[in-house]
């Protein structure tokens, strides 16, 4: 990914409203199809985007009640697009990613609260995930290679 140029960029701002994550996933699908990503990989990207949006909607407590997404197709200008980079950002209260306990099925089966899987799913489906969070909000940058 180092040295790759941004070949195409789409920005999307969504209200934190029911099923808005599906709108985000449709944009992710369009961008991934544009770079001829395989259907299975596109599905993985869609699901990761859904989870990132849900995290923002459920946990950010952002006063503007908006999720900001940037979809970037990266690659060498002389060749095919190689990487899809998606940033999901909110202007919420932030959190400490390193203090988020990794969920386990054994624990969740007996726990009252069975949720809390979003980050684990995102990490499992995307090639690379970076989280930057602080008092002015959270951004999750997720990348997936085409090939």
């Amino acid at each position: 990914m180092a040295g790759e140029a941004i070949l195409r960029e789409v920005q999307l701002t969504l209200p934190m409203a029911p099923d808005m994550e599906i709108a985000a996933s449709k944009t992710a699908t369009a961008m991934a199809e544009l770079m001829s990503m395989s259907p299975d990989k596109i599905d993985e990207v869609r699901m990761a985007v859904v989870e990132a949006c849900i995290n923002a909607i459920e946990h950010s407590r952002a006063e503007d009640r908006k999720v900001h997404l940037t979809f970037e197709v990266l690659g060498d200008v002389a060749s095919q697009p190689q990487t899809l980079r998606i940033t999901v950002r909110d202007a919420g209260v932030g959190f400490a990613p390193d203090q988020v306990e990794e969920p386990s099925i054994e624990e969740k089966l007996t726990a009252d609260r069975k949720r809390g899987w979003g980050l684990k799913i995102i990490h499992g489906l995307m090639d690379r995930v970076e989280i930057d969070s602080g008092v002015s909000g959270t951004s999750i940058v997720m990348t997936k290679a085409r090939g």
Partner: protein
Amino acid sequence: MSESLKLQVDSRDGLAVIYTEGYINNQGGEEIARTAYQLIDDGHKVLLLNLGGTKIVNSIGISILIEIIEKMLEIDGKLAFCCLTPTIEKTFHIMGLAQYAGIFEDEPQAETALASG
């Protein structure tokens, strides 16, 4: 924008199959749970969730499926899934669901495995 989930149920030979069509989110998961608990109340202890008509799920919906797995373990029953997209199957493996619920390629495979105990 709402992507509602449609369900159908088919009961035969002690097995109840729940067919889903659409997005399994919070509401969709709750709908599946209501249906599953009704089937359990009716005496079914073996449930198969055929997700062939579902192309996308989210973690809130899956969390509700975990509640159903917990319930099935409590009554010494069995829950299995079939006809998953590769991404949904991968997600179930990431979450560890496959340790507690069978995952099968298609309905005949699931029926055979569930019938053999």
